[in-house]
């Protein structure tokens, strides 16, 4: 009987020990309750590596599921080597809580992210290594987060995936880049009529020299949508993604919630003002930065990545720009394996 009690006590102690935290195929479902929001943080993969990659989703108003449920070729590779941290921002994705438009600010998102990072250190120990990656708006948020030295010290390196780093410049960059693609396609005698019309419309928009704001973005955004259609029609990008449907039952993917919980509030409007803060503080960033863009990304052209790399003070050997040849704006769905391999290589260099 005594033996049985010892065995039971040992079992209970072991089951509560840190060994559960660190496994080759771990899964931890955490929630951060902060300022009215309930933010889901899913840690999945190889926590034994003690390397945690936080994936910031796009939008504003997207979901971290963009890296996971529908992009298994990407997430499986990342999770094999490291712990992927899928975090949904407030009023987006699977996040819940109360609705308070006053809290939907860039500053609040930075504060939330800072607490997510602190929570990971609290939960998994201060000896873990945290890497930050952001896609599209996530790239913007990641950059904004890193402008402060204290916050920057919590992160080993940053991976900017198709990030919109400067909202205002982004419109002009996209228009110029779609003209370049149009000229290439016309020279190649492909889809000539459509590309010619698009080129003319983009040139006309550029010649208007518009000072953009959220409302005036609608014209470049419409041209971007058109160019994305032609890019797909011409087979310039590939797709390697899976149906997220099975994740709706086996995992925490909720398509109905994600579809509707897509609230930008005034975040895009705020980005136009915050551009100035980013511009004047970019040189404070000194950590290693990898910028990965799709060659056919017309939503956030690769010039956005160059703008980031040119502006930061990171030594040139620790910053790098990569163009994925067959990708558009969502390289985790276009070339997930190539993207994952680039990220893994980058993390292995700086872990």
């Amino acid at each position: 009987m005594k033996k049985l009690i010892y065995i039971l006590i040992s079992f209970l102690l072991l089951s509560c020990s840190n060994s559960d935290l660190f496994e080759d195929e771990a899964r931890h479902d955490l929630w951060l309750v902060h300022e009215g929001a309930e933010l889901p943080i899913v840690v999945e993969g190889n926590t034994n590596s003690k390397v945690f990659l936080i994936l910031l989703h796009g939008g504003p108003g997207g979901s971290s599921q963009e890296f996971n449920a529908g992009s298994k070729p990407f997430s499986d590779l990342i999770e094999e080597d490291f712990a992927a941290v899928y975090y949904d921002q407030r009023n987006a994705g699977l996040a819940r809580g109360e609705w308070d438009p006053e809290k939907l600010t860039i500053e609040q998102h930075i504060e939330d992210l800072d607490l997510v990072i602190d929570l990971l250190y609290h939960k998994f120990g201060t000896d873990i290594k945290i890497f930050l990656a952001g896609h599209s708006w996530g790239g913007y948020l990641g950059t904004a987060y890193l402008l402060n030295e204290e916050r920057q010290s919590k992160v080993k390196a940053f991976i900017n995936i198709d990030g919109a780093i400067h909202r205002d410049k982004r419109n002009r960059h996209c228009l110029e880049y779609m003209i370049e693609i149009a000229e290439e396609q016309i020279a190649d005698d492909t889809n000539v009529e459509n590309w010619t019309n698009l080129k003319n419309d983009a040139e006309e928009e550029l010649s208007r020299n518009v000072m953009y704001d959220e409302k005036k973005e609608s014209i470049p955004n419409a041209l971007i949508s058109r160019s994305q259609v032609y890019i797909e029609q011409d087979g310039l990008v590939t797709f390697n993604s899976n149906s997220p449907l099975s994740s709706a039952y086996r995992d925490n993917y909720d398509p109905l919630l994600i579809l509707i919980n897509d609230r930008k509030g005034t975040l895009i409007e705020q980005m136009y003002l915050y551009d100035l803060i980013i511009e004047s503080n970019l040189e404070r960033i000194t950590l290693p930065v990898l910028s990965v863009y799709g060659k056919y990304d017309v939503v956030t052209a690769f010039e956005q990545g160059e703008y980031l790399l040119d502006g930061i003070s990171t030594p040139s050997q620790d910053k790098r720009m990569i163009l994925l040849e067959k990708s558009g704006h969502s390289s985790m769905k276009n070339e997930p394996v190539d993207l994952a391999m680039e990220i893994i290589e980058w993390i292995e260099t700086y872990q």
Partner: protein
Amino acid sequence: MGGVFMRILICLIFVSQSNFLLAQDTISHSDKNIGINYFGELGLRPGIEIDCGFPLWNRESMKEKKKRKVQQYLHFRPSIAYYFYARNSNNFLLAPKLNYQLRFAKASNGRYFFIESSVKIGYLRKSLIGEKYRLTDGNFEEVKRAGTNSIVLGSGFDFGGYVSKSIDWLIGFDYFIESTQDRLILHRFVAKLGVRKKL
């Protein structure tokens, strides 16, 4: 304001559930039944529903040519359901329903087939799965009972039939709108499969 409205509505739902249960004691006990259903949100998120039917009104007519009885019932059906959303939440739904049933019975042996539709209003409690943390005085502390509250409004369509004198089978589909604390309107679809036992 929204929070106050939600609290009042939740109280009303609780009161109506219990009030109707008590009130039914004075009405005829015939055709009271209890149901137990598989309750699959989005079809495959597993759950269970228990409901109870109390007759409010009924009417019967005979189709002499087809030797068939047509019966109509209006039931009040308070229900409680639980469904599991993997790695996200445990969900508890409390919803009184008003249920109209059209039953076609063979006069010869009393066997029947029925179709029914229902409307419901309810309260949904989502209890989040996982470890929940909050920053208090610079330290993270675990939060107990984190979750969200919603009001639901919905309708359903079922069909079923005779198994034995006291048992019916049932297949059904529910649709409900979930109005959440974070001011979202979510659409929920449920598939049901179950049995009802007459009391």
